[in-house]
């Protein structure tokens, strides 16, 4: 079996930007490990700017040319070598990551007024590792590189959970690590099987092989099952969400924002690649209902659990578990006969849901951290009068919540309308029902926080000052989620850039 000619066998101009996006944060680790601990933060902030510029350049380049950016490492084309590639969807992920990472960096900066609240140097190094790993997940085309990227991501994310070193967070971190490793090895096993069956690890080439051969190999079937479950475990998709609530709720605010907004999106992005690129339409159609059922379970059960929480951070954590459920409703909706997934409105809706959840959730975790800092606790029952103490934080939380509830104007609203439209057009009423019910539950748990904060009197007493800058960062992210509500209610062409070329002619 000769491998089909790969479309990504040559680097495109400016392809080196992809490598830079991955290695620049890593290069930052070198000065960070050699300089004095108090300088680490400054180095990190510098690198945040540099990395942001690189991602911006990638976005501009892809938008200007309307074509994906390719880079072949060392000039060794797949299958022997490995390639990086940024298509429309990856660019959106890269930009989302850059915005949230930079915002988190600004949020976590040491306050001159309150130097005791500084994050330890480890935080900044882990942030760099995390960013590099995320960028790699979004541009790598090689299944094994993706495995390494996922592990890198896990190693950066897990210690963020237990930066405070308390027994509770250490316990949460260990549980997170072990379950994430469980997911990773399943993915690795799948990678091995795919190599054994097709002799390449390059996703586009694998996709072409799968489409070229008639009946799928048994190895492909098992690999898809292993990868799906492995990634679901890493994404904390219901019913495999055991590790998420304690880990995301226990971490410091800046870390929670990263974990909830970005880290779980990496396995979800891979699931999209696996099912939309690799599997091929017949298998994708068979697997999609299962994914959607898990997503529906997440929306329902984790939504109710969020409603039941007494602590704000746990509420937000459960809300994350609920919100990612929506993303899995996308799979059956994007698989329409006669259209490539990326041409459907569900594809755009799913991507938009992913991105707007990232911004709104990061804003909400930051706001929750500030609230906990100001009040010394995060018991929702004692939030009466909070709106007067921390108006900006409550506003940021509410704006973020707007997106979760799917109310206009917000990215969440547009995403919900698109997914609903797809469900209606295909007459998948149960999916429409899940989306609507999820919106009600989200409304319930968001308002459970906002209403006492704004309308109850008494209760909340500020024990500490919070920095206006941090509040501003949270508000800025929430506003980004709102501004996303202005994208047109149609499939967005940018998200389809470079995808048709990826797997050859559309089915």
């Amino acid at each position, binding site marked *: 079996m000769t491998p089909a000619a790969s479309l990504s066998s040559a680097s495109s101009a400016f392809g080196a930007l992809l490598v830079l996006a991955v290695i620049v944060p890593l290069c930052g680790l070198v000065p960070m490990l050699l300089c004095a601990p108090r300088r680490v933060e400054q180095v990190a902030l510098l690198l945040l700017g540099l990395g942001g510029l690189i991602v911006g350049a990638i976005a501009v380049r892809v938008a200007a040319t309307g074509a994906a950016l390719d880079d072949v490492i060392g000039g060794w084309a797949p299958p022997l070598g490995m390639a990086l590639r940024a298509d429309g969807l990856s660019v959106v992920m890269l930009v989302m990551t850059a915005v949230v990472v930079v915002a988190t960096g600004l949020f976590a900066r040491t306050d001159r007024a309150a130097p005791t609240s*500084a994050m330890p140097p480890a935080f900044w190094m882990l942030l760099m590792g995390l960013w590099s790993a995320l960028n790699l997940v979004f541009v790598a085309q090689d299944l094994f590189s993706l495995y*390494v990227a996922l592990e890198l991501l896990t190693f950066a994310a897990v210690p963020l959970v237990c930066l405070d*070193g308390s027994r509770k967070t250490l316990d949460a971190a260990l549980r997170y690590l072990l379950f994430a490793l469980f997911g990773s090895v399943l993915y690795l096993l799948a990678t*091995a099987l795919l190599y054994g069956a097709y002799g390449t690890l390059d996703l586009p080439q694998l996709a072409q092989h799968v489409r070229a051969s008639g009946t799928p190999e048994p190895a492909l079937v098992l690999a898809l099952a292993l990868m799906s479950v492995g990634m679901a475990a890493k994404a904390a998709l219901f019913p495999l969400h055991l590790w998420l609530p304690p880990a995301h709720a226990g971490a410091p605010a800046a870390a929670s924002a990263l974990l909830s907004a970005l880290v779980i999106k990496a396995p979800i992005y891979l699931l999209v690649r696996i099912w939309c690129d690799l599997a091929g339409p017949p298998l994708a159609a068979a697997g999609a209902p299962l994914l959607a059922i898990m997503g529906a379970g997440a929306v329902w059960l984790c939504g109710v659990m969020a409603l039941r929480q007494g602590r704000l951070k746990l509420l937000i954590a459960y809300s994350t578990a609920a919100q990612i459920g929506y993303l899995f409703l996308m799979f059956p909706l994007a698989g329409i006969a006669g259209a490539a997934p990326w041409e459907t409105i569900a594809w755009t809706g799913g991507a938009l849901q992913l991105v707007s959840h990232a911004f709104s959730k990061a804003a909400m975790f930051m706001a929750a951290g500030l609230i906990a800092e100001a009040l010394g606790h995060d018991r929702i029952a004692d939030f009466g009068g909070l709106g007067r103490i921390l108006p900006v934080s409550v506003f940021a939380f509410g704006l973020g919540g707007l997106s979760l509830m799917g109310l206009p104007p917000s990215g969440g609203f547009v995403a919900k309308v698109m997914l609903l439209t797809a469900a209606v057009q295909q007459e998948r009423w149960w999916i429409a029902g899940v989306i609507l019910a999820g919106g009600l539950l989200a409304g319930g748990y968001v308002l459970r926080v906002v209403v006492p904060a704004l309308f109850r009197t008494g209760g909340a007493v500020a024990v500490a000052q919070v920095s206006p800058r941090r509040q501003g960062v949270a508000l800025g992210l929430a506003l980004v989620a709102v501004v996303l509500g202005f994208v047109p209610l149609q499939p967005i062409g940018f998200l389809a850039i470079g995808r048709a070329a990826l797997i050859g002619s559309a089915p």
Partner: protein
Amino acid sequence: MSGSFSLSVFGLAGAGLVAIGLFGLIVQGAAFRKILAFNLLGGGIFLLMGVIARRGAAAGFGGDPVPQALVITGIVVAFSATALAVALLLRLQDAGEQNSAAVDDRDRAARQGDA
């Protein structure tokens, strides 16, 4: 003939190791034993990759060098994961023995160290 037999034997052994590791990872209560089980599971997967590499013997090589190289990388990654998990476990052990005041002390020390 015997080559194909050996491949089957090692394939079964790899699959068996995977199953044993999975079983251990699920039913073992102690984190320490879960970490061991994770390594069994990883070992089984690597062995399967070895079988796949051996199947691809060609061009005068005893096996396909690509999966062999992947296994080397995989072993190092698995070791890193194990080391991190064990460090977390031991840290958890220490934290459990300390009382909460000690944890507060630790926080203060952390802040002073940073300032």
